[in-house]
């Protein structure tokens, strides 16, 4: 798992270069989410560059302009057409890991998101450890 202190690492050599490559990639977090989830998501800023578009449309624009390592769709965007967005995002970047944060027990929504291209669906409130593990794996 990535650790926050890696962001400031000055290591040399292959391991350092690998970390450097990881460090400069961006996590795009679409939406602001509920307070509790936001707190967890904000913690991601500790180990890499994070941008916070407030809509799916601006997230797509960020995908085009950033070296995106992964995309996290927060749970406050459920009113937006997430399935359509996922399809569009997949067309734009086929291999970008995309995580959708959703209501607990909303299995139908989770399945729909997976069918439309989500890498994984995480229930709210996501645990910091679980989210970091997913994001770290994605960034590698």
């Amino acid at each position, binding site marked *: 798992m990535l650790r926050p202190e890696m962001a400031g690492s000055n290591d040399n050599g292959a391991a350092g270069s690998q970390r450097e490559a990881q460090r400069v990639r961006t996590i795009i977090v679409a939406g602001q989410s509920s307070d509790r989830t936001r707190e967890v998501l904000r913690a991601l800023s500790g180990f890499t560059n994070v941008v916070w578009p407030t809509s799916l449309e601006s997230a797509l624009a960020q995908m085009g302009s950033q070296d995106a390592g992964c995309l996290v769709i927060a749970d406050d965007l459920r009113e937006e057409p997430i399935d359509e967005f996922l399809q569009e995002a997949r067309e734009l970047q086929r291999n970008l890991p995309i995580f959708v944060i*959703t209501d*607990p*027990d*909303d*299995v*139908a929504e*989770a*399945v729909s998101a*997976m*069918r439309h291209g989500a890498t*994984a*669906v*995480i*229930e709210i409130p996501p645990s910091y450890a679980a989210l970091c593990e997913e994001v770290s794996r994605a960034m590698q």
Partner: protein
Amino acid sequence: MKDLPQTVFVVDDDDAVRDSLRMLLKSAGVHAETSASAQEFLSRYDASQPGCLVLDVRMPGMSGLEMQHELNLRGVTMPVIFITGHGDIPMAVEAMQQGAFDFLQKPFRDQELLDRVQRALVRDAENRARLRHTDRIRERLASLSPREREVLDLVTQGKANKMVAGDLGVSQRTVEIHRAHVMQKMEAGSLAELVRMMMAVAPSP
């Protein structure tokens, strides 16, 4: 060879669920076969039989997710629709990540299941047509001589006959003859078609 009819394989340890699904599918004109356990299904499954699978997640012995894993190991591409009365998001995500076609929670409306079954059967037919197509391409590739294969690889990389001749150390006329043989054996009408064929059989990234 006559195509086998599409079958919906229902695997559920609950007798009542199996019977009701069989009746439902029969009423919709869909042929169904039922199994009471994953082991029973696996012991008699014939991969040449087209169709889809309606699979209960929680069963004694091998669970639905374990059976899906086993099918993946065997290279079975038949679409799997999971049904469960005790589904949660991690379970659904795992099933979908393992390649499930759909995941449905009980209770569900009859039409919901029938719609998904119809889509799964269409998907299976498409998968099988794609496999037959790539098998035919591989058979044609196997009929090429080593030199023809070299020419094929180079021309589908976009190289002109003159460059291919240079790479292989032969005359341009020789390349033209090999190329004509390649087009004939591969049953390709154009270079673009030949490239599409090679992309169809290329390993996934």
